[in-house]
């Protein structure tokens, strides 16, 4: 049986599933329940500096993008960081860590971008006995208007500066949580590393508006007659998060920097994606908020079963396995040729492949043969784009068949070649090497 325990930049936990800093980790009551359910760790909801607590709205904090069956696709929030006294939070962190010594307890922190603020809070946090700190440079709403959260995460120089303060004033491992609301995620990650960060975590939430009420023509969610952009998360953001994780994992400047993956993780399958692209731990919020803490048991069981089925004995053996499969477009092999293939035995004749291809792609799928409804790929037209695979309602009915070397591509009349041809060397590229 594969072992799920991890050592993430010196922070140990019995499994890689942590609750992200968010409403589910707001106080001891919730965290105790999470640990009872089996979560390997928690990142405590972001602490603020001592003084009058943060104030939240007294109306809708959450909005959702729902499928027709009301399964939740995307989720957004305008809740701020903890609105409880710092001292209460610190006492609870201390007590919880004492009761659950094998679990990872990480304190998320957000204080003003002033050295004395960080200098003041860091020793008090360390004194709780927690395992590490996460710097909240990602929260995109509310606090960012006050120069904190994403406002810091969008300026690499600030990231490096604050990270360095934390490394100076604390012995705890420092995880820098990054905002996706930037144009190139590699820059803030490099800044974190330059500041001495032990790890990065990403993604925080994405700026978002969920919609407009068709009756009142007010944006939603709204507090009374106005709303504001919130942070978007949930299943819909996973592809964006995976891209950013992979970018940091394959950037020579940050390769090897531990990554805690966050963004749309609701199952072991999602966790697998993040771990294979370089994450050493994963953080979950939305799935817990939809299904409750018990959901971690399905994630643990599924991941362990997968590792066993692949012969991996630990999470570490899976970590990063897919990083090498991510590259730039210019390095893709333009000599590889694929054609769609429709399995007539499992085709249900809905015709979605045909109309998608006919109206919006390459007119490469028939609608009839001998006057009868029949959907078949015309290889002489098919560019192998994969659209039909994606719109087919039957799993596995349409597959992509790669032409064997030497086989003639009926669209171009050229033979598929084993020789690799990248854009960098393509004859049509005026900037090709040697041109």
């Amino acid at each position, binding site marked *: 049986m594969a072992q799920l325990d991890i050592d993430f930049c010196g922070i140990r936990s019995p499994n890689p599933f942590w609750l992200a800093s968010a409403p589910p980790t707001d106080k001891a009551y919730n965290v105790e329940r999470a640990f009872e359910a089996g979560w390997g760790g928690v990142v405590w909801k972001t602490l603020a500096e001592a003084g009058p607590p943060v104030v939240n709205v007294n109306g809708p904090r959450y909005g959702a993008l729902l*499928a*027709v*069956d009301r399964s939740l696709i995307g989720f957004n929030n305008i809740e701020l960081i903890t609105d409880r006294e710092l001292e209460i939070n610190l006492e609870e962190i201390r007590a919880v860590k004492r009761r659950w010594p094998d679990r990872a307890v990480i304190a998320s922190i957000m204080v003003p971008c002033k050295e004395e603020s960080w200098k003041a809070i860091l020793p008090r946090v360390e004194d709780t006995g927690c395992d590490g700190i996460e710097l909240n440079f990602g929260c995109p709403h509310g606090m960012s208007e006050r120069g904190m959260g994403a406002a810091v995460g969008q300026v690499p120089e600030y990231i490096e500066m604050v990270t360095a303060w934390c490394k100076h004033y604390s012995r705890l491992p420092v995880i820098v949580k990054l905002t996706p609301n930037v144009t190139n995620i590699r820059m803030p990650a490099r800044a974190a590393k330059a500041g001495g960060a032990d790890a990065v975590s990403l993604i925080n939430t994405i700026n978002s508006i969920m919609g407009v009420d068709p009756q009142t023509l007010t944006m939603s969610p709204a507090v009374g007659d106005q709303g504001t952009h919130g942070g978007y998360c949930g299943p819909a953001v996973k592809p964006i998060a995976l891209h950013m994780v992979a970018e940091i994992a394959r950037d020579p400047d940050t390769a090897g920097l531990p990554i805690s993956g966050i963004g749309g993780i609701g199952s072991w399958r999602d966790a697998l994606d993040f771990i294979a692209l370089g994450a050493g731990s994963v953080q979950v919020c939305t799935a817990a908020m939809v299904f409750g803490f018990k959901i971690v048991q399905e994630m643990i069981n599924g991941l362990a079963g997968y590792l066993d089925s692949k012969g991996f004995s630990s999470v570490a053996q899976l970590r990063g396995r897919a990083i090498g499969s991510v590259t730039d477009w210019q390095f893709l092999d333009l000599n590889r040729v694929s054609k769609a293939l429709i399995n007539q035995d499992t085709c*249900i*004749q*809905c*015709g*979605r492949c*045909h*109309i998608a291809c006919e109206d919006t792609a390459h007119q490469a799928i028939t*609608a009839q043969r001998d006057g009868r*409804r029949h959907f078949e790929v015309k290889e002489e037209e098919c560019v192998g784009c994969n659209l039909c695979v994606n719109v087919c*309602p*039957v799993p596995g009915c349409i597959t992509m068949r790669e032409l064997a070397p030497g086989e003639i591509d009926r669209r171009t009349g050229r033979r598929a070649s084993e020789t690799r041809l990248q854009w960098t060397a393509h004859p049509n590229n005026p900037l090709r090497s040697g041109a």
Partner: protein
Amino acid sequence: MSEEHRADIRPGRLAPQAYAARFADHVPPLTEAQALLEANRCLYCYDAPCMQACPTRIDVPSFIRRIAEGNVRGAAESILVSNPLGGLCARDCPTEVLCEQVCVRNIQQGQPVAIGRLQRYAVDGLLSGAHQPVFLRAPATGRRVAVVGAGPAGLACAHALARAGHSVVLFDAKPKAGGLNEYGIAAYKVAGGYAQREVQWLLEIGGIELRCGWRLSSAEQLAALRREYAAVFLGVGLAGTYRLGIPGEALAGVLDAVEFISELRQTPDLATLPVGRRVVVIGGGMTAIDAAVQSKLLGAESSTIVYRRGAEQMPASRKEQDLAQIHGVRILHWLAPVEVLGEGSVRGVRFARQRLEAGRLVPAGEELTVEADMVLKAIGQRLDASVLSECGLAQQGGRIAVDESGRTSVANVWAGGDCVADGDDLTVYAVAHGLRAAHDMDAQLRNGPARADG
């Protein structure tokens, strides 16, 4: 038995409060949550097989997608533009042999999208609330058209003609419009007075004058209509029934199933409707099923359908046969009636076992008696042909002959529905007939004088 046999036929076999529940919708309406889930199963197929299977070509993927998008009115519009009786067809169409039979979800999931129930959801949604008119009439043409028969064919025809700007007088022999949907099908298929609700909605378009209690019973009447109106549509249905033609048919307790159902449909209090303790229904079509099931619902101790051929040959669909059996109706096959037994009133029916020989039914030798207090004959309806022959209307297979536009052999006279020799005897075919005739009549009325070739 020396004394005259006393059949046990009486009303009130059930507790008074039991009737309403028993005759409620046998397929309950979808809730909003159910409709949204079900609508999401539709794949929005290209050149959708369901649409091709519908005699009125309702754009099924379109209306289902609109339900999924929360646009119930738009869904209803999409249905009604192809089939103004879409609410009724949603209830009484044998969808299992039409649109739902060819749904691709059958192949993938073993269960079609519930197209009929979704269609009802959409149309009911429109009709239940205050609604803006779906159809506006074209400017008046000044042409007057007579539509004879206010069943599905006549209603569809009248509605389409009114929509095109013509003035329509809609005649019917019965006190109410609706035809078989008001008088002829099981109550639980059109619960809640739906048939009349739909008639009211159809008439809302304006330009249709309904004249009930007018029966076409002479050639002179049709001649007068042809003189007074620019065009005539006949949707007179099948008013006659077949006789068993065996001894004992006149005994008390032997009824036409259509009469039994008609009385049931018009009875304000079902507790007053007499039903036999043991009911035998002879026949194998929808009417036989409707009569047998409703007998059982009225409290008959036993209800038995006896059909001269096998289950596969029954005109009633498999689903209808299942429905009967779920309600405790027994179905006997390969038995033809030989004699209705009894003195004064019926006490049973003697049947002869049948077998096929060179494609023909022949007695197999064995005989069987089924006891009965009430016998309902459901062996088919037929055209009341004598008047129509006098009118000079050519016939084919016992029905009015029409061309592909619904024209009869008589100039300016169109026909459709069960009275013509075309398609199955279903509401949806009748609607399709009414619409195609209206389309052709409209073209003729607009484009010139009546045909002279007759």
